[in-house]
Protein backbone atom coordinates (compact mmCIF):
# COMPACT_ATOMS: atom_id res chain seq x y z
CA UNK A 1 0.00 0.00 0.00
CA UNK A 2 2.22 2.69 -1.26
CA UNK A 3 2.32 6.30 -0.35
CA UNK A 4 0.49 7.48 -3.49
CA UNK A 5 -2.46 5.29 -2.63
CA UNK A 6 -2.95 6.95 0.75
CA UNK A 7 -2.75 10.45 -0.69
CA UNK A 8 -5.21 9.71 -3.47
CA UNK A 9 -7.55 7.90 -1.09
CA UNK A 10 -7.47 10.85 1.31
CA UNK A 11 -8.23 13.21 -1.56
CA UNK A 12 -11.16 11.10 -2.73
CA UNK A 13 -12.71 10.62 0.70
CA UNK A 14 -12.17 14.29 1.51
CA UNK A 15 -13.87 15.30 -1.72
CA UNK A 16 -16.78 12.99 -0.99
CA UNK A 17 -17.19 14.36 2.53
CA UNK A 18 -17.08 17.93 1.26
CA UNK A 19 -19.62 17.08 -1.42
CA UNK A 20 -22.24 16.08 1.11
CA UNK A 21 -21.42 18.46 3.93
CA UNK A 22 -20.90 21.89 2.41
CA UNK A 23 -23.58 24.57 2.46
CA UNK A 24 -22.88 26.14 -0.88
CA UNK A 25 -24.10 23.79 -3.60
CA UNK A 26 -21.61 24.86 -6.22
CA UNK A 27 -18.81 24.04 -3.79
CA UNK A 28 -20.46 20.64 -3.34
CA UNK A 29 -20.40 20.10 -7.09
CA UNK A 30 -16.73 21.09 -7.32
CA UNK A 31 -15.84 18.80 -4.41
CA UNK A 32 -17.66 16.04 -6.26
CA UNK A 33 -15.43 16.74 -9.26
CA UNK A 34 -12.39 16.31 -7.01
CA UNK A 35 -13.81 13.01 -5.77
CA UNK A 36 -14.31 11.82 -9.36
CA UNK A 37 -10.76 12.80 -10.28
CA UNK A 38 -9.44 10.98 -7.21
CA UNK A 39 -11.35 7.88 -8.24
CA UNK A 40 -9.91 8.10 -11.74
CA UNK A 41 -6.43 8.20 -10.21
CA UNK A 42 -7.30 5.13 -8.13
CA UNK A 43 -8.36 3.33 -11.30
CA UNK A 44 -5.02 4.25 -12.88
CA UNK A 45 -3.31 2.94 -9.76
CA UNK A 46 -5.13 -0.35 -10.36
CA UNK A 47 -3.78 -0.63 -13.94
CA UNK A 48 -7.22 0.00 -15.44
CA UNK A 49 -6.21 2.84 -17.73
CA UNK A 50 -9.20 2.65 -20.03
CA UNK A 51 -11.63 2.80 -17.12
CA UNK A 52 -9.71 5.71 -15.58
CA UNK A 53 -9.78 7.81 -18.74
CA UNK A 54 -13.44 6.97 -19.37
CA UNK A 55 -14.16 8.03 -15.77
CA UNK A 56 -12.58 11.43 -16.37
CA UNK A 57 -14.23 11.88 -19.74
CA UNK A 58 -17.73 10.89 -18.61
CA UNK A 59 -17.86 11.95 -14.99
CA UNK A 60 -15.67 15.05 -14.83
CA UNK A 61 -16.44 16.14 -18.35
CA UNK A 62 -20.16 15.50 -18.41
CA UNK A 63 -21.86 14.50 -15.15
CA UNK A 64 -20.18 17.25 -13.11
CA UNK A 65 -21.26 19.83 -15.71
CA UNK A 66 -24.80 18.39 -15.61
CA UNK A 67 -24.92 18.76 -11.83
CA UNK A 68 -23.68 22.33 -12.10
CA UNK A 69 -26.26 23.21 -14.74
CA UNK A 70 -29.01 21.72 -12.59
CA UNK A 71 -27.85 23.75 -9.60
CA UNK A 72 -27.95 26.92 -11.64
CA UNK A 73 -31.29 26.17 -13.29
CA UNK A 74 -32.98 25.46 -9.98
CA UNK A 75 -31.48 28.53 -8.33
CA UNK A 76 -30.13 26.35 -5.55
CA UNK A 77 -26.90 28.26 -5.43
CA UNK A 78 -28.64 30.96 -3.45
CA UNK A 79 -28.97 29.25 -0.10
CA UNK A 80 -30.93 30.98 2.63
CA UNK A 81 -28.50 31.63 5.42
CA UNK A 82 -30.77 30.91 8.31
CA UNK A 83 -32.00 27.38 7.89
CA UNK A 84 -30.02 24.22 8.07
CA UNK A 85 -29.19 22.30 4.95
CA UNK A 86 -29.88 19.00 6.65
CA UNK A 87 -33.39 17.65 6.92
CA UNK A 88 -35.13 17.26 10.26
CA UNK A 89 -34.49 13.54 10.37
CA UNK A 90 -30.78 13.69 9.75
CA UNK A 91 -29.84 11.55 12.72
CA UNK A 92 -31.62 8.51 11.33
CA UNK A 93 -29.84 8.86 8.00
CA UNK A 94 -26.49 9.14 9.72
CA UNK A 95 -27.15 6.04 11.82
CA UNK A 96 -28.18 4.03 8.75
CA UNK A 97 -25.09 5.10 6.83
CA UNK A 98 -22.83 4.29 9.77
CA UNK A 99 -24.48 0.89 10.11
CA UNK A 100 -23.94 0.15 6.41
CA UNK A 101 -20.30 1.13 6.71
CA UNK A 102 -19.88 -1.01 9.79
CA UNK A 103 -21.34 -4.05 8.05
CA UNK A 104 -19.18 -3.56 4.94
CA UNK A 105 -16.00 -3.01 6.92
CA UNK A 106 -16.71 -6.02 9.10
CA UNK A 107 -17.30 -8.17 6.01
CA UNK A 108 -14.03 -7.03 4.43
CA UNK A 109 -11.91 -7.46 7.52
CA UNK A 110 -13.56 -10.75 8.39
CA UNK A 111 -12.72 -12.28 5.05
CA UNK A 112 -9.16 -10.98 5.12
CA UNK A 113 -7.44 -14.37 4.90
CA UNK A 114 -9.71 -15.53 2.11
CA UNK A 115 -9.29 -12.58 -0.23
CA UNK A 116 -7.68 -13.29 -3.59
CA UNK A 117 -4.08 -12.30 -3.89
CA UNK A 118 -2.11 -10.28 -6.35
CA UNK A 119 -1.59 -12.16 -9.57
CA UNK A 120 0.71 -9.72 -11.33
CA UNK A 121 -0.34 -6.70 -13.33
CA UNK A 122 -2.95 -7.66 -15.92
CA UNK A 123 -2.68 -6.08 -19.32
CA UNK A 124 -5.95 -4.75 -20.60
CA UNK A 125 -5.07 -3.36 -23.99
CA UNK A 126 -7.62 -1.41 -25.94
CA UNK A 127 -7.55 -4.17 -28.51
CA UNK A 128 -8.70 -6.70 -25.91
CA UNK A 129 -11.40 -4.36 -24.63
CA UNK A 130 -12.64 -3.81 -28.17
CA UNK A 131 -12.69 -7.52 -28.89
CA UNK A 132 -14.53 -8.18 -25.64
CA UNK A 133 -17.08 -5.45 -26.35
CA UNK A 134 -17.81 -6.79 -29.78
CA UNK A 135 -17.58 -10.42 -28.78
CA UNK A 136 -18.76 -11.45 -25.37
CA UNK A 137 -20.41 -8.20 -24.41
CA UNK A 138 -22.12 -7.16 -27.61
CA UNK A 139 -25.60 -7.58 -26.13
CA UNK A 140 -24.94 -5.29 -23.15
CA UNK A 141 -23.32 -2.84 -25.58
CA UNK A 142 -26.42 -2.64 -27.74
CA UNK A 143 -28.70 -2.42 -24.73
CA UNK A 144 -26.62 0.38 -23.22
CA UNK A 145 -26.78 2.16 -26.58
CA UNK A 146 -30.58 2.06 -26.65
CA UNK A 147 -30.65 2.97 -22.95
CA UNK A 148 -28.54 6.06 -23.59
CA UNK A 149 -30.74 7.09 -26.52
CA UNK A 150 -33.86 6.64 -24.41
CA UNK A 151 -32.29 8.57 -21.53
CA UNK A 152 -31.29 11.40 -23.85
CA UNK A 153 -34.76 11.73 -25.35
CA UNK A 154 -36.39 11.27 -21.95
CA UNK A 155 -34.27 13.89 -20.22
CA UNK A 156 -34.97 16.42 -22.97
CA UNK A 157 -38.70 15.78 -22.79
CA UNK A 158 -38.83 15.86 -19.00
CA UNK A 159 -36.94 19.11 -18.76
CA UNK A 160 -38.62 20.79 -21.71
CA UNK A 161 -40.49 23.92 -20.94
CA UNK A 162 -44.11 23.50 -21.93
CA UNK A 163 -45.84 26.56 -23.28
CA UNK A 164 -48.52 27.52 -20.83
CA UNK A 165 -51.81 27.44 -22.69
CA UNK A 166 -53.75 29.41 -20.12
CA UNK A 167 -51.41 32.36 -20.04
CA UNK A 168 -53.73 35.28 -19.85
Amino acid at each position, binding site marked *: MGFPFWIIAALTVGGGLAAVLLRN*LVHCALALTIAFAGLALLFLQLDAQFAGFVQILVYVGAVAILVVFAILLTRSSETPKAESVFSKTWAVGLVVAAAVFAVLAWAVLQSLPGLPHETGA*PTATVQQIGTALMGNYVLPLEIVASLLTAALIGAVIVALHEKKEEAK
Partner: protein
Amino acid sequence: MANPLVGYLLVAAILFAIGLAGALTRRNAIVVLIGIELMLNAANLNLIAFWRYGPHPETLTGMMFAIFSIAVAAAEAAVGLGLVISIYRHAQTADLDQMNRMKG
Protein backbone atom coordinates in the same frame (compact mmCIF):
# COMPACT_ATOMS: atom_id res chain seq x y z
CA MET B 1 2.50 -6.57 3.76
CA ALA B 2 -1.23 -6.69 4.00
CA ASN B 3 -3.28 -7.52 0.98
CA PRO B 4 -3.54 -4.29 -1.05
CA LEU B 5 -7.10 -5.18 -1.98
CA VAL B 6 -8.23 -4.37 1.57
CA GLY B 7 -7.28 -0.71 1.23
CA TYR B 8 -9.32 -0.28 -1.92
CA LEU B 9 -12.33 -2.10 -0.47
CA LEU B 10 -12.29 0.02 2.66
CA VAL B 11 -12.07 3.24 0.62
CA ALA B 12 -15.00 2.06 -1.45
CA ALA B 13 -16.97 1.26 1.70
CA ILE B 14 -16.27 4.70 3.17
CA LEU B 15 -17.30 6.43 -0.05
CA PHE B 16 -20.47 4.37 -0.19
CA ALA B 17 -21.36 5.27 3.38
CA ILE B 18 -20.66 8.96 2.73
CA GLY B 19 -22.84 8.91 -0.36
CA LEU B 20 -25.61 7.13 1.52
CA ALA B 21 -25.43 9.63 4.38
CA GLY B 22 -25.64 12.50 1.90
CA ALA B 23 -28.58 10.97 0.10
CA LEU B 24 -30.47 10.37 3.33
CA THR B 25 -29.81 13.56 5.27
CA ARG B 26 -29.68 16.51 2.89
CA ARG B 27 -32.71 18.60 1.97
CA ASN B 28 -31.82 19.61 -1.51
CA ALA B 29 -32.72 17.16 -4.27
CA ILE B 30 -29.51 17.76 -6.16
CA VAL B 31 -27.31 16.80 -3.23
CA VAL B 32 -29.27 13.55 -3.02
CA LEU B 33 -28.32 12.90 -6.63
CA ILE B 34 -24.72 13.76 -5.80
CA GLY B 35 -24.86 11.14 -3.06
CA ILE B 36 -26.23 8.59 -5.50
CA GLU B 37 -23.37 9.29 -7.90
CA LEU B 38 -20.88 8.78 -5.09
CA MET B 39 -22.47 5.42 -4.28
CA LEU B 40 -22.23 4.31 -7.90
CA ASN B 41 -18.61 5.37 -8.03
CA ALA B 42 -17.82 3.43 -4.87
CA ALA B 43 -19.31 0.32 -6.45
CA ASN B 44 -17.19 0.89 -9.57
CA LEU B 45 -14.07 1.09 -7.43
CA ASN B 46 -14.99 -2.23 -5.86
CA LEU B 47 -15.46 -3.80 -9.28
CA ILE B 48 -12.13 -2.62 -10.61
CA ALA B 49 -10.29 -3.60 -7.42
CA PHE B 50 -11.64 -7.12 -7.61
CA TRP B 51 -10.85 -7.31 -11.29
CA ARG B 52 -7.25 -6.37 -10.62
CA TYR B 53 -6.60 -8.67 -7.71
CA GLY B 54 -8.95 -11.47 -8.47
CA PRO B 55 -8.51 -14.65 -10.48
CA HIS B 56 -8.70 -14.44 -14.29
CA PRO B 57 -8.24 -10.74 -14.94
CA GLU B 58 -7.76 -11.54 -18.62
CA THR B 59 -11.49 -12.06 -19.12
CA LEU B 60 -11.93 -8.33 -18.38
CA THR B 61 -15.23 -8.92 -16.59
CA GLY B 62 -14.68 -6.34 -13.86
CA MET B 63 -13.50 -3.66 -16.26
CA MET B 64 -16.45 -4.22 -18.62
CA PHE B 65 -18.90 -4.13 -15.76
CA ALA B 66 -17.39 -0.88 -14.50
CA ILE B 67 -17.51 0.74 -17.96
CA PHE B 68 -21.15 -0.18 -18.45
CA SER B 69 -21.88 1.05 -14.94
CA ILE B 70 -20.30 4.41 -15.79
CA ALA B 71 -22.46 4.71 -18.89
CA VAL B 72 -25.65 3.79 -17.05
CA ALA B 73 -24.83 6.17 -14.18
CA ALA B 74 -24.38 9.03 -16.62
CA ALA B 75 -27.76 8.30 -18.21
CA GLU B 76 -29.40 8.10 -14.81
CA ALA B 77 -27.84 11.37 -13.69
CA ALA B 78 -29.18 13.06 -16.81
CA VAL B 79 -32.73 11.85 -16.30
CA GLY B 80 -32.65 12.49 -12.54
CA LEU B 81 -31.44 16.05 -12.96
CA GLY B 82 -34.03 16.65 -15.66
CA LEU B 83 -36.66 15.51 -13.20
CA VAL B 84 -35.32 17.85 -10.52
CA ILE B 85 -35.47 20.77 -12.94
CA SER B 86 -39.01 19.87 -13.93
CA ILE B 87 -40.13 19.62 -10.30
CA TYR B 88 -38.52 22.95 -9.53
CA ARG B 89 -40.45 24.52 -12.36
CA HIS B 90 -43.69 23.20 -10.91
CA ALA B 91 -43.17 23.68 -7.19
CA GLN B 92 -40.72 26.59 -7.27
CA THR B 93 -38.47 24.77 -4.84
CA ALA B 94 -35.96 21.95 -4.86
CA ASP B 95 -36.35 21.33 -1.14
CA LEU B 96 -37.29 17.75 -0.39
CA ASP B 97 -38.76 18.51 3.03
CA GLN B 98 -41.45 20.57 1.36
CA MET B 99 -42.25 18.03 -1.30
CA ASN B 100 -43.80 15.51 0.99
CA ARG B 101 -47.22 15.07 -0.61
CA MET B 102 -48.29 13.22 -3.69
CA LYS B 103 -50.85 15.88 -4.58
CA GLY B 104 -49.20 18.34 -6.92
